[in-house]
């Protein structure tokens, strides 16, 4: 399943990769019912992929919120609209920064670990051993990780957004002196549950989670079984995920707004 064809053009190579990825997705979806037999595996993956990412997600959420509060306060002060800082921080985080930054961090932290783990399993012939034992490696290895990523991303995104709001509040109210009541009332009157939170946070993060997990699992599964190949696949996970996240973000924004 190697895609190393050094004499083909880059465009054809990329297209072939995308096509293989899509077909891989179909194989994973076909294997989901049988992977439900391995619920424990999915739960374990959810722990590694989701709960272990909490540290970085919460820290970065806090800092993103703080920096947004700071930047937006100074820009809004030009127009005398600093009372709107709360709502602008919330809208920026819910609609764009929350899902996208969470997805990028997730790709960097969880995506690479998935790719490296599966790549090493292939390099140490564990996947071949499973095939010989008539255990479907996709159902046992790929599908649980894909599902775990799909479930973890929205949850992580919500945590990121909550920390972002907290960070924005910390900077805006405690440090820069915006009135607490104004901060919250402006925010609550401008943020809509359906348009911003459900559409922006939930749908986007589910889509990003699917894309990142798929790319991570695919790269790990199809890497050439050498140490160099695994390293290369890990890099490609991050790069491809990032491009896919940002492109999909634009498409989803246009579609959902």
């Amino acid at each position: 399943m190697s895609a190393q064809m050094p004499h083909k053009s880059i465009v054809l190579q990329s297209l072939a990769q995308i096509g293989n990825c899509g077909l891989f997705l179909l194989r994973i979806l076909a294997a989901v019912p049988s992977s439900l037999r391995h619920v424990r595996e999915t739960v374990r993956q959810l722990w590694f992929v989701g709960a272990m990412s909490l540290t970085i997600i919460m820290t970065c959420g806090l800092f993103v919120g703080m920096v947004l509060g700071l930047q937006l306060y100074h820009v809004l002060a030009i127009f005398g609209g600093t009372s709107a800082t709360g709502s602008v921080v919330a809208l920026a985080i819910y609609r764009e920064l929350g899902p996208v930054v969470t997805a990028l961090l997730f790709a960097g932290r969880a995506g690479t670990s998935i790719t490296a783990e599966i790549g090493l399993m292939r390099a140490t012939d564990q996947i071949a051993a499973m095939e010989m034992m008539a255990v479907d490696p996709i159902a046992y290895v790929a599908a649980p990780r894909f599902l775990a990523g799909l479930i973890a991303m929205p949850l992580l995104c919500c945590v990121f957004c909550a920390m972002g709001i907290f960070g924005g509040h910390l900077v805006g109210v405690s440090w820069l002196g915006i009135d607490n009541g104004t901060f919250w009332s402006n925010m609550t009157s401008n943020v809509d549950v359906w348009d911003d939170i459900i559409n922006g946070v939930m749908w986007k993060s589910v889509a990003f989670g699917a894309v990142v997990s798929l790319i991570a699992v695919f790269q790990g599964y199809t890497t050439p079984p050498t140490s160099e190949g695994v390293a290369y696949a890990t890099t490609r996970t991050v790069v491809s995920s990032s491009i896919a996240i940002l492109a999909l973000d634009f498409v989803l924004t246009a579609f959902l707004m």
Partner: protein
Amino acid sequence: MSQRKSYAVGTGLFIVLGFAALAYLATQTSSVANSHQGSSYTIDAQFANIGALKERAPVKVAGVRVGQVQSITLEPGKDVADVTLSIDKKYNEIPTDSVATIYTSGLLGDQYVGLQFGGAKTYVADGGHIGLTKSSAPLEEMLGKFLGSGGAADAIGGTYSVRADFTNVGTLSVGAPVKMAGVAIGSVASIKADPVKLDATVTLAIDKKYNQIPDDSSVSIFTSGLIGSQYVAIQPGGSPNSLKDGDQLVLTQSAMQLEDLIGKFLVNGSPSGSNSAGGNSSPNTPAGKH
């Protein structure tokens, strides 16, 4: 075995944390937090112009939120909008003659409905109706009032033209208001110099609803205030016939020039009159211009 249990417990905690964060976001930071729609009752009002009012905009009494706009609809064939307001049940003593006005919060803010209580003894009940409403003031109307150039009569095609000849228009400019009894009824449409009669022909555009101005009215150019801009004033005459489109007003009084006034004083005060009255001097700067 115990490792598997800790994975399960930890994962469960993670999922709970995620949902708790989502619940916090949805309830505390979004507009759901505002509308603690306990129990409420609905009343409706009709507005000629809702401006930028949106659904779920607040309804306020004395600036305090008492409810929100539930729906805004326009029945085909009607030219007033039906706005349904949902008011918290605890504010159930709104007099039936209260006035509902659409205000704007701040300079660029959202619009909301403000209720000013009347003095009636009966209160609006569920499903009731507020009869007195004031629509939102569109920006153009307010600017028109400030600029003073005939806030009433700017409707295209809603004016009729009348001419008047002046020997001196002073600093009258196109667009200056035409006033009757101090109220703007139109504006100056054009000012042209007549090469034959050697005076100025001023065309006035008067709002069509003032169509009973006697055709022997006199028209003068006055100055608003001491150094204000000049405007055209119509003083009604007594003729039973009204002015029609294209008519000419014969009795005119030209603008007073500063030099004329000073000249009058000098002539009256001392016999050595320097160039006195008479408005054939070119309309150059009286005190109004700087």
